[in-house]
């Protein structure tokens, strides 16, 4: 039984916000769903990948977010319903398609989910993707809870078809990754096939068409604004007695507002906005007119606040508007109820206790940041590269588990901005630096955004080594398949695309494939590659240790132990190599049997040959 697919209509099930989106989309009768995995959006695609075959929908992990979006556009322009989901930075990749699709508009419902990540829990920035709704003229819904994730996904499809526009559903980590009760409805399958009705004056965005379509988009936004004013997704919650003070809020911030206001014993009216773009102007005017002071509580950018100030100015209202611009609420990082409580105290000048903070004086505790796993092939690669270069190289890194190599002892990342950037930045680094430059990119990331950079490097004769760290999966986000994988989601017949063939097809003349578990060969190959005058590529291929371990039922390759009589406590295995299975306590290094993946890399690293295979 899969709760996303099999939960009975009317039943209450515990669902992750992302799973609730998947369920909502199934009930909305989607024909296709696409994604490129990324935290905190991944479980939307993972849930749909699991049930696609049984639900009779088509699902794919596309090569990247813009391809995922374009695929969904093709389907929705034909008239079926399509869902595409991604993390916030994925929308930077997909934006080119989305912003012009708003001009052509859609026939079937088209919903794009962007999962934002305030506080950068798993991301390289905390950009606020509500701006894309403003930038593109795209209606925007923002759920606050799993129940709303479910409900607003369904509403988003209806809205999209009503307006013939794409709709953005925007979550944050504390919406996508919250699990709560969801009362579900019935899954009513929608049409899976349509005939594309040709209409180039709408769908082929030549300049003349685009000019005409922009006016249509602006008209539709007027209609959307009326719908926002009437929408049940925008409503007032009254806390305590009748009040002349109010709060306007949306998304996760709403939850903190409700708990904080209650805790502070406030009497206040809360206007919760679920349909936030276009702004429900009339509703806001009415709220401002009936309140003397209104705090706008939103995470990240002051988007509502700025718009609401503009509305007040336009209407000549004297209502005091409070928010980020007067310093009551911060513009960086996610909120919680304590931050919101302290903001409300500041904004309304409450005497109530500012959230009391418990000061706990703890000893300096050893940190436990995420690390490369026991048996991770990336650890072996980084060890070999450091050995080959004597650490005299500049490392252009990329996005994936292997970014964790930035930490000591590998220090294997010097520059990273976005997906695929290792290849592009390596060219620039190599052009103006004398040190050797090595770019690291994962297999999934290579397919996603590495290929144009590689073609550019070949064409212009840039000199650097590109190492494609091929662990046969998209590991960091939960082991989703990619174009090089042998297996796809339940509904797909897939063809595995060879990285070697792609690399050769890009015009690379120097290409080697190594097994990173073989330290000597990998080290020697890196040395050779760095002597090549041009782009050299090494594919370091070894399956992700977690997958290997799972597929072997937990059995390990070759269990190893440290022979304490041979060990000279030189610490090479902890200072130059790093494995979570090896610990050094009271100057004695040992291997933990339970976590050892049996990769035997430590045995190659040990200068004394003290690490031996257990028999």
């Amino acid at each position, binding site marked *: 039984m899969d709760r996303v697919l099999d939960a009975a209509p009317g039943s*209450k*099930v*515990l669902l*992750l916000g992302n799973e609730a989106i998947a369920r909502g989309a199934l009930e909305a009768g989607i024909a296709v769903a696409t994604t490129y995995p990324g*935290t*905190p959006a*991944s*479980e939307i695609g993972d849930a749909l990948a699991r049930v696609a075959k049984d639900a009779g929908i088509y699902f794919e992990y596309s090569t990247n977010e813009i391809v995922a979006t374009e695929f969904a556009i093709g389907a929705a322009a034909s008239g079926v319903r399509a869902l595409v989901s991604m993390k916030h930075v994925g929308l930077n990749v997909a934006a080119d398609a989305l912003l012009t699709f708003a001009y052509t508009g859609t026939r079937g419902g088209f919903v794009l989910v962007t999962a934002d990540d305030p506080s950068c*829990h*798993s991301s390289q920035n905390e950009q606020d993707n509500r701006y894309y709704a403003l930038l593109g003229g795209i209606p925007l819904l923002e759920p*606050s*809870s799993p129940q709303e994730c479910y409900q607003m996904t369904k509403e988003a499809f209806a809205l999209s078809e009503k307006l013939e526009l794409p709709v953005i559903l925007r979550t944050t980590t*504390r919406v996508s*990754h*919250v*699990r*709560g*009760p969801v009362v579900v409805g019935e899954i009513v399958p929608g049409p899976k096939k349509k005939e594309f009705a040709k209409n180039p004056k709408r769908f082929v965005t030549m300049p003349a068409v685009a000019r005409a379509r922009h006016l249509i988009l602006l008209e539709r936004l007027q209609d959307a604004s009326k719908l926002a004013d009437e929408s049940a997704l925008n409503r007032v919650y009254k806390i305590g007695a009748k009040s002349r003070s109010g709060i306007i809020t949306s998304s996760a911030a*709403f*939850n*903190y507002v*409700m*708990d904080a206001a209650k805790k502070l014993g406030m009497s206040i009216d809360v206007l919760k906005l679920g349909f936030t773009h276009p702004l429900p102007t009339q509703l806001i005017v009415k709220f401002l007119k009936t309140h003397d002071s209104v705090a706008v509580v939103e995470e990240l950018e002051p988007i509502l606040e700025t718009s609401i100030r503009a509305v007040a100015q336009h209407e000549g209202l004297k209502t005091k508007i409070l928010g980020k611009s007067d310093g009551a609420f911060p513009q960086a990082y996610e909120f*919680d*109820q*304590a931050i919101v409580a302290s903001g409300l105290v500041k904004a309304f000048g409450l005497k109530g206790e500012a*959230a*009391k*903070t*418990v000061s*706990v004086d*703890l*000893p*300096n*505790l*050893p*940190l*436990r*940041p*995420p*690390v*490369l*796993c026991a048996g991770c092939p990336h650890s072996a690669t980084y060890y070999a590269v450091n050995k080959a270069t004597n650490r005299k190289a500049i490392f252009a890194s990329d996005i994936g*588990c292997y970014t*964790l190599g930035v930490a*000591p*002892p590998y220090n294997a990342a010097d520059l990273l901005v976005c997906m695929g950037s290792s290849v592009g930045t390596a060219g620039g680094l190599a052009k103006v630096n004398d040190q050797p430059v090595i770019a690291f990119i994962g297999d999934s990331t290579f397919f996603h955004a590495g290929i144009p950079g590689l073609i550019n490097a070949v064409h212009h004769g840039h000199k650097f080594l590109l190492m494609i760290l091929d662990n046969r999966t998209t590991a*960091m*986000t*939960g082991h989703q398949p990619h174009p090089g994988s042998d297996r796809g989601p339940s509904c797909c017949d897939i063809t595995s695309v060879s990285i070697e063939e792609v690399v050769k097809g890009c015009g690379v003349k120097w290409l080697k494939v190594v097994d990173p578990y073989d330290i000597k060969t990998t080290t020697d190959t890196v040395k050779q590659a760095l002597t090549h005058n041009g782009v050299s590529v090494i594919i370091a291929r070894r399956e992700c240790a977690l997958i290997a371990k799972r597929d072997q039922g937990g059995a390990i390759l070759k269990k190893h132990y440290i022979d304490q009589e041979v060990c000279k406590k030189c610490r090479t295995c*902890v*200072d130059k190599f*790093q494995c*979570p299975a*090896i*610990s*050094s*306590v009271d100057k004695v*290094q040992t291997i933990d049997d339970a976590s050892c993946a049996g990769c035997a890399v430590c045995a190659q690293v040990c200068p004394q040959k003290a690490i031996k295979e257990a028999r």
Partner: protein
Amino acid sequence: MTDIYLVGVGGQGIITASRIIGDAAILAGKSVLLSETHGMAQRGGSVLCTARIGGVYSPLIPDGQADVVLSFELLETLRAVCKASKNTVVVSSNERMIPLSVSSQKLKYPTLDEVRREVAKIAKEFVLVEASKIAGEAGVPMSSNVVMIGALAGTGLTNLDNKHFQKAIEMNIARNVRENLAAFSKGLDAVSRRNRN
């Protein structure tokens, strides 16, 4: 209303444990919210989840506000005491997972006595559970997380019936259900017995 703060290390089954709490709460007809750590942090890093049973909107638990800290690892217990107050019961597994920083930066992993002493300064009670050992006795060495759910039930602080926990375990654990239910009972006994003593 009960706020439970779950902590441990990626890979210890903490998300599954929080789901069991969530399902048990729904079976008991209560509202519940869980927040989870996914993605990068799971790679052997500190992991935290929250479970808030009762009518709340926010999934997060601010410092000093947990009713129960349910910790799957001793060092993480200490790291989580900021969530405790003099009203908090801290239930901790005795399991130790030495982080790489202990080896590489030559830092000291705290002793059990140190953990006990620091927790006692802040919390109402410190309850130690030999989760791994108990799971082994139940025949499911990998199910320390289910033992810890039993331990949570044993505190009596969740106001959920054991039958709801048991049903929730069946919903979330695919294999060795009988042994896992035994692991739950043993965890429960280990903690509720200390109440009687």
